[in-house]
């Protein structure tokens, strides 16, 4: 009995959980709402879970739900590999294994009283969504809050209805797509092109950036050009997380283990490594 208790407390043992609901977001992206224990905050914005599809494998997936919503873990992911493709086939009532939460959160306290810029690229909006919820819940604690969101095309925009609700909740939401035809009335161009016009005071802005690495590099560069101090830019890194607790070394990125020291890292800590072809 004692052994069982020890095993169940181990961060390496997946807990079987049921999927409550599955939401199709785009052609290849979906959200799973997974049952969780009630009571207390389940995670902090920026953290991730290890999700195990039985018989297939385990992958790290960021939390994308509201940290203040009890009893449910929400994960949004894209079907790109064997595990996430199998996960895409799971429906309400199916079980998967869950470990976590793991990793460092977005340091929202660093932004108290300041302007906030969130720069999201593609599926990178999912790890930022819990932060958006938290900012909305504490809206008076911050100055101007701006979300700059870039996607590949209008069809691939995530959380479409929610984006409108966020605007109504006092967030400036600017959306751009890389490719569009004439029926799209919004911005076309890369998300970094939105940075120069973001209505914030750069010297008192904290930026949270999530997306493909090269997009984050260009975004951090654009933020720097705008005058946002490097130490106030935070990025969320993605690597091949396996154990998720800093034992195995699969996710080593220079001197950091992304699973334990990240995924959220201050820009000065990763800046020099992101342009290195192989780390």
């Amino acid at each position, binding site marked *: 009995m004692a052994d069982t208790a020890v095993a169940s407390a181990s961060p390496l043992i997946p807990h079987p959980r049921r999927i409550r609901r599955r939401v199709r977001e785009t052609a290849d992206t979906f959200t799973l709402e997974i049952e969780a224990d009630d009571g207390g905050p389940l995670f902090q914005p920026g953290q991730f879970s290890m999700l195990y599809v039985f018989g297939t494998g385990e992958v790290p997936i960021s939390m994308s739900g509201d940290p203040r919503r009890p009893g449910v873990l929400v994960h949004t992911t894209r079907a790109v590999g064997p595990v996430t493709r199998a996960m895409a086939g799971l429906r309400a009532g199916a079980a998967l294994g869950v470990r976590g939460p793991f990793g460092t959160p977005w340091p929202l306290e660093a932004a108290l009283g300041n302007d906030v810029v969130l720069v999201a*690229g*593609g599926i990178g909006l999912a790890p930022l969504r819990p932060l958006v919820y938290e900012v909305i819940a504490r809206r008076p604690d911050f100055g101007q809050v701006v979300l700059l969101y*870039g996607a590949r095309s209008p069809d691939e925009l995530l959380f479409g209805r929610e984006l409108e609700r966020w605007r109504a909740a006092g967030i400036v939401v600017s959306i751009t797509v*890389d*490719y569009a*035809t004439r029926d799209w009335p919004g*911005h*076309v161009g890369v998300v970094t*092109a939105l940075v120069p016009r973001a209505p914030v005071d750069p010297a008192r802005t904290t930026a949270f950036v999530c997306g493909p690495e*090269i997009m984050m590099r260009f975004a951090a560069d654009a933020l720097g050009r705008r005058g946002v101090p490097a130490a106030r830019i935070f990025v969320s890194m993605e690597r091949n997380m396996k154990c998720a607790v800093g034992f195995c070394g699969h996710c080593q990125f220079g001197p950091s283990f992304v699973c334990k020291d990240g995924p959220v890292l201050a820009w000065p800590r990763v800046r020099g490594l992101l342009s290195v072809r192989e780390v």
Partner: protein
Amino acid sequence: METLEPILARHLFFQDLDARHLALLVGCAGNVRFPAGAFLFRAGQEADRFFLIREGRVAIEIAPPGAAAHTVQTVGAGDVLGWSWLIPPYHWKFDARAVEDTRALALDGKCLRTKCEADHDLGYELLKRFAQIMEERLQATRLQLLDVYGARG
């Protein structure tokens, strides 16, 4: 009624421009308006001016033969549109279509080229500012070409 000089001076593109140069530029500038759907210019036409967008949004488009127009980029308030007036043979390479009702300042290309030839300090200042825009757009286009949100992104 406000003259064009303070409007030019307030536009991001001419921020901190020398007052003497600003006075030279005013003589080449005029206010323009385009309703949504109107073209500011079309590919192949003579590039005889450039635009400082004050309000609205403009799509830079390319239309492959027999296919729907593809929007390469949009520009809006505070942006600059067009540098083909600066580079021979002075022809537009893309279409520019107002997506929304758009207000802009149009600067006459021939007038500017003449003034830049006569005053190389003005010419160098303008070239530096356009080079910055070109560099930003080239970097943006390179990033766009990477298709970073694609399956491998």
